[in-house]
C-alpha cells in the first residue's frame, strides 16, 4: 500500500488541481462576473471599449463559471405561483360556440331552434326546442371533436358531449384537459421568462414545480411586489362587440354575453358579447406612444389573420361601439367611425407614461394563458444578503483556524498534512459547486462550515488507528499501512449513511434545504477523497523521502 503507482499519483494530483482550477474564478468574483457579463453582451452584438476592457480582465482560456449566490445572499424576490388551469378550459369552450351554433343550425329540421344557456365555466350548454332531436344534436356536436395529438391520448377526442334533458352539454374530454394543462404550463413558463427577460436581470430562475406551479426567483429585483406587477398581470387583451351599457353591475347579461366593469368609472358596466372578435394572441407588436391628444397610449399591430378579422368586423359595424378589454376590465369602448383595414390601432385610456410602457411590454411578451395565484412570496434586501455573506465568511475563517490549530496540536506533523488536505478540500468543494453551476445559499455556507468540522473525521479515524497499530510494536510503514486499511470500512460506512441523508434532503427538500444538501453531499465526497487518497499520497511521499525509523502520530 505504501507503493502508490505513478499513474494513481498523477490522477490524484490532477483531480485536485482540476478542482482548484475550477474554484479559482470565485477568488476574483467581481472581475470574473464582469468578464462573463461582457462576453454575453458582446455575443449579443454590443460593442464598446469598456466592454472589451471588462472582457480582457479575465483570460478567456481559464474557467469562468462561478458559484451562483442564492437569493438569501444576493437579495431579490422569490415567488411561487399557482396557475389556474381551468381558465383555459373555459376560454377554449367559449370559443367553441360559433362552431356549435353552425353545426346545430344545419340540423334545424330535427333539433328545432337553439339557445345558449348560462353555465358553469368550462362548460357549454345549448338548449334545443325539440327534445326528441337530442340524439341527433349530440351527434352533430360530437362530429366537431378532433382527435388528440399527444403521446398519452392516442385515439381520444378532444370534446366530451353529453345530453341533459333538452340540453347539449359540451366540455373538454379528460385527455384533452391533460394535454391542455401541459400546453398551458409550457406557455406560462415561456411568457413569464419573456417578461422577466424584458427587464433584463441576471440569471432568473423560472421553474415548473409539480402539476400546476411555477417557481420564479429573480436576484437583484427590489421587491416581490415589483415582480408580481410584472408577471401577475394576465394581460389578456380582447376586442368585443358592445351589446349595451348599464349602471347595474349585478344585472344578468344573458346567455352568450358577459358583463365587465369600466376601468375608470366604477359605476359603469358594459354588457359585451362573450366571444371576442379578435384577441391579443394575434398581436405582432405593441409600442408605447401618444394619442392625438398627446396622452400616453399604446400602439398595436395585428398579424395577417388578426388584421383580416379586425378589418372585416370594422367594415361591417361602422357606427356601433366596440370594447377593448384587458383582463376583464373595459379600457375603452370607442365607436367605429370607419373601416380599419391595416390591422393596426391605438389603445388610449387614462394611462401614465409608466403604465403605457408596462402595458406595451406585457402585450408584446404575450398574454398568460391563465390567471396566477401567488402561494408564497419572499423579498430579501441586498444588505441583509451582504451581512449574511460577511458573517458567513468570518464564521468560516474562525472555524477553519480553530480546526487547523487543534489538528496540529493533536497530531503534530500528521495533523499538518491533514490541514493541507482540509484546505484543498474546501477549494475542491467550491470547484465542484462552480462546475455544476450550483447555487450557494446561507444554509449552504452552514453546510460548508459543518464539512470543515466533519472533514477531519476520516483523517482522525485513520490517525487514531495508526496510533493503535503503533502500540502493537509494528514498524512505522506497517502501522500506517494497517491504519489506512482498517479504518477504511468505518470511513466508508459512516460517510455513506450521511451521504444518504444528503441525497434524501436534496430529493425531498426545496429552496434552502436543497442548498444545504448540495454542499453537504459534495463536502462528503471531497472529504472522503482527500482523506483516502490525498493525505495518503502526502504521507507516502513523506515516508519515501525521510524513511523515518519511528513516527509519532
Amino acid at each position, binding site marked *: 500500500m505504501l507503493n502508490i503507482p505513478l499513474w494513481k499519483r498523477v490522477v490524484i494530483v490532477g483531480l485536485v488541481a482540476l478542482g482548484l482550477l475550477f474554484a479559482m474564478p470565485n477568488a476574483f468574483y467581481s472581475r470574473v462576473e464582469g468578464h462573463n457579463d461582457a462576453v454575453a453582451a458582446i455575443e449579443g452584438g454590443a460593442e464598446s471599449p469598456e466592454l472589451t476592457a471588462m472582457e480582457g480582465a479575465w483570460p478567456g482560456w481559464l474557467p469562468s463559471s462561478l458559484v451562483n449566490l442564492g437569493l438569501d445572499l444576493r437579495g431579490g424576490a422569490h415567488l*411561487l405561483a*399557482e396557475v389556474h388551469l381551468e381558465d383555459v378550459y373555459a376560454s377554449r369552450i367559449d370559443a367553441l360556440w360559433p362552431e356549435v351554433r353552425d353545426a346545430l343550425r344545419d340540423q334545424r329540421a330535427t333539433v328545432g331552434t337553439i339557445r345558449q344557456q348560462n353555465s358553469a365555466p368550462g362548460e357549454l350548454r345549448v338548449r334545443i326546442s325539440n327534445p326528441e332531436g337530442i340524439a341527433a344534436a349530440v351527434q352533430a356536436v360530437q362530429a366537431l371533436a378532433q382527435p388528440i395529438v399527444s403521446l398519452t391520448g392516442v385515439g381520444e377526442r378532444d370534446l366530451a358531449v353529453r345530453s341533459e334533458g333538452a340540453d347539449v352539454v359540451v366540455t373538454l374530454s379528460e385527455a384533452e384537459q391533460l394535454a391542455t394543462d401541459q400546453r398551458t404550463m409550457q406557455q406560462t413558463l415561456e411568457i413569464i421568462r419573456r417578461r422577466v427577460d424584458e427587464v433584463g436581470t441576471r440569471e432568473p430562475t423560472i421553474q415548473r414545480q409539480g402539476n400546476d406551479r411555477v417557481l420564479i426567483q429573480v436576484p437583484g429585483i427590489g421587491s*416581490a*411586489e415589483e415582480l408580481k406587477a410584472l408577471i401577475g398581470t394576465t394581460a389578456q387583451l380582447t376586442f368585443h362587440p358592445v351589446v349595451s351599457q348599464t349602471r347595474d353591475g349585478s344585472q344578468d347579461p344573458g346567455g352568450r354575453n358577459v358583463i365587465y366593469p369600466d376601468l375608470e368609472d366604477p359605476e359603469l358596466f358594459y354588457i359585451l358579447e362573450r366571444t371576442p372578435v379578435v384577441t391579443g394572441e394575434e398581436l405582432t407588436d405593441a409600442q408605447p406612444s401618444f394619442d392625438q391628444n398627446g396622452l400616453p397610449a399604446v400602439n398595436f399591430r395585428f398579424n395577417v389573420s388578426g388584421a383580416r378579422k379586425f378589418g372585416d368586423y370594422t367594415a361591417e359595424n361602422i357606427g356601433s361601439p366596440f370594447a377593448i378589454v384587458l383582463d376583464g376590465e373595459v379600457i375603452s369602448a370607442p365607436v367605429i367611425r370607419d373601416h380599419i383595414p391595416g390591422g393596426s390601432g391605438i389603445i388610449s385610456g387614462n394611462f401614465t407614461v409608466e403604465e403605457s410602457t408596462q402595458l406595451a411590454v406585457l402585450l408584446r411578451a404575450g398574454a398568460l394563458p391563465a390567471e396566477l*395565484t*401567488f*402561494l*408564497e*412570496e*419572499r*423579498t*430579501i*434586501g441586498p*444588505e*441583509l444578503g451582504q*451581512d*449574511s455573506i460577511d*458573517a*458567513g465568511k*468570518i*464564521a*468560516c475563517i*474562525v*472555524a477553519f483556524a*480553530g*480546526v487547523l490549530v*487543534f489538528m496540529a*496540536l*493533536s497530531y*503534530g506533523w500528521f495533523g499538518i498534512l491533514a490541514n493541507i488536505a482540509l484546505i484543498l478540500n474546501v477549494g475542491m468543494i467550491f470547484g465542484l459547486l462552480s462546475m455544476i453551476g450550483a447555487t450557494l445559499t446561507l*444554509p449552504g455556507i*452552514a453546510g460548508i*462550515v*459543518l464539512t*470543515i*468540522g*466533519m472533514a477531519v*473525521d476520516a483523517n*482522525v*479515524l485513520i490517525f*487514531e488507528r495508526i496510533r493503535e497499530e503503533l502500540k502493537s510494536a509494528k514498524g512505522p510503514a506497517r502501522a500506517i499501512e494497517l491504519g489506512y486499511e482498517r479504518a477504511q*470500512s*468505518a470511513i466508508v*460506512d*459512516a*460517510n455513506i*449513511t*450521511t451521504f*444518504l*441523508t*444528503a441525497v*434524501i*434532503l436534496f430529493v*425531498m*427538500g*426545496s429552496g*434552502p*434545504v436543497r442548498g*444545504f*444538501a448540495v454542499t453537504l453531499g459534495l463536502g462528503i465526497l471531497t472529504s472522503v477523497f482527500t482523506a483516502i487518497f490525498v493525505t495518503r499520497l502526502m504521507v507516502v511521499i513523506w515516508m519515501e523521502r525521510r524513511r523515518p525509523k519511528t513516527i509519532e502520530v
Partner: protein
Amino acid sequence: MRLKLVPDETTWDFFRHARLTFGASVVAVIVSVFLFLSMGLNFGIDFRGGTTIRTDAEQAVDVGAYRDAIAPLGLGDVSITQVFDPARPDLNVTQIRIEAQEGVESVSETTVAAVRDALQAVDPSLTFQEVSSVGPKVSGELIKAAVYAVLAAMGAVLVYIWLRFEWQFSVGAVAALVHDVLITIGVFSLLQIKFDLAIIAALLTIVGYSLNDTVVVFDRLRENLRKYKKMELREVMNLSVNETLSRTVMTSFTTLLALLALYFLGGDVIRGFVFAMIMGVVIGTYSSVFVAKNIVLFLGVKRDWSKTDASKGNQYANIDA
C-alpha cells in the same frame, strides 16, 4: 507532546451506570414527547402560513410603539420580537410575524405597504430587509414533505445498516436516531424556538451525524466480535467504545468548534439552525456511546460468524440493559 482530549488507554465501564444513563435517555424522550404534545412547536410561517417581515432601523427599537402602530390595521395576531445579536450590538432589527389572513393565499402588497407606512410613522429610517409570505396551501404541503423526508432518511438508514451489519445493529442505530430527533424537538418545544424548514434540514443532518458516530462504534464492535470470540458481549462492547472513544470525542470537538463559530459569528438568520445542529451533535455523541449499543446488547447478537447457528448469541438477550 500532543494535545489529548482522552487518555491513550481507557478501560472505562460504560455499562456500570447503564440503568442511570439509559434510564435518563428514556425519561428525556418521554419528557420531550410530553413537551411537544403539551406546548407544541413554535412553527414558522413555512409550516403554518402567514407573513414575516424583518425590519431594520437606525434608531433603537421600541417594540411597544411598533405594536401600537400596527394594532389599528386589524391584522389579527401580530407578534413582534427584537432580534438580539451579541456579535452585532448596533443592530436595530425586529421580526414581525403576521398570521395568515382569512381566505388569502399570500399576503397582498397593500397589507405590507400599510404595515410599512404605519411603522415609518414611528421611525422614518425604518426599512424592510426581508418580507416572506407563505399561503396556507403551501405550508400544509411543506409539513407533509418535511415529515416524509425525516421518515425516508430513517428508513434508508435502517436498510443500509441492516445490509452492512446485523438487524440488531440497525434497530439500535435507528433507536438512537429517534432518541436524538425527539429530544431535539423537545428542546425546541421547551424553548419555543422558531421551527421552520431550515430546522428540518438540521434535524436530518443530526440523523446523518449521529449515525456517523454510531456506525464507527459498530464497525469496531463488528471487528472485535470476530477477534475476541470468547469474550462476553458486554466486555467486547466496552472495549470497542473505549478504543473509538478518542476518535468520537475528537470529531465531535472539531465539529462543535466549527458550529460554535457559526453560532456566535454567523449572524442571527441561521442561529436557530445552528443551535439545532449543536444540540444534535451533543446528543448524537451521547447516544452513540450510551444508547445505540445498549439496544444491541439487549437484542443480542449472533457471535459465531463462521457457522449459521443463530440461536447461540441469544444467551445474552436477557441481560438487562
